[in-house]
């Protein structure tokens, strides 16, 4: 399974970095989901954002059905505690 990373930084990314900053913006919806996992608008925003990233990522060529899971990982005394925030599926 390929590791999806944010878009590679180029020199012009110092001026404009739209895809990279989209990652930041999606955190607003993620924060909302942590407080209210049933927020329908936040869930829909995350679903669409994930789909956009899958469609546009340079390494991903396959198309078809997909599943995703977003987890909150908290570090307590060097131990990672994982909590599922949102799961979803779709079709590219």
């Amino acid at each position, binding site marked *: 399974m390929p590791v999806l990373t944010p878009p590679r930084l180029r020199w012009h990314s*110092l*001026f404009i*970095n*739209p895809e990279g*900053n989209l990652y930041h*913006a999606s955190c*607003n919806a993620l924060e*909302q989901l942590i407080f209210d996992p049933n927020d329908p608008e936040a869930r829909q925003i995350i679903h669409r954002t994930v789909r956009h990233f899958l469609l546009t990522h340079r390494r991903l060529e396959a198309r078809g059905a997909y599943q995703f899971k977003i987890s909150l990982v908290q570090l307590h005394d060097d131990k990672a505690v994982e909590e599922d925030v949102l799961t979803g599926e779709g079709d590219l």
Partner: protein
Amino acid sequence: MNWVETLIAWAVSLQALEQILLQRRLHDGDPWQTTWMSGPLFSATQWLRFFVAIACLVYSWLPAFLILFLTTYLVSVRYRGTFNGGSDTVTLHVLGAVIVAQAFPQFKSEAQFYIVLFVALSYFVAGLAKLLTPVWRDGSALTQFLLFSNAAFPNRFTESVRRNPNRVRKWAWFVTLWECLFPIGLLLPSTMGVFLSVGVLFHLLNFYFFGLNRFFWAWLAAYPAFFGMISQRF
């Protein structure tokens, strides 16, 4: 304030251009299109924002900065929060001060000092929070940030830094002390040049390691206010 006005207009023009390009790249619909401002209306506001910002590069005009403030604020409303965290907040505060200076020229110095105080406090509060946080004092917080960087990961510099925890700890302490001591530049203006130079490097590195391009331009727009304040005192 003239350089502040020019640089903040430049920063806003880049932010607007980012939004315009992002709208064109969202193939399968805009993730935020369910909110009240979406689609053609949002694109129109960003085009307006872009052209007004470009105009402000050559001509300083109060109504133009009011438009920039409003269209910048609307972006945060649309995204249910700041699009890019602290950079959006700094942008709004600097624009607000520019508007006050333009609308009330007798308060130009006060508006300039507001920018100076805001930036100094933002660094100091961030540094104090790091100083009081154990994971920042031992360097592990910075290591984790590098591990989950929003920039091109991994790159050889990031790997090198992560393999050397002592170096990371020193970097964390350097940033913490710089931020905590930044207000000293207000009391000793002769040192402000050093603090600001480190600040430019700090934001450039934030871009390189974390992809935070907007922070660089937003904070850079505020820096000329420090030189204006220093020149007034001397």
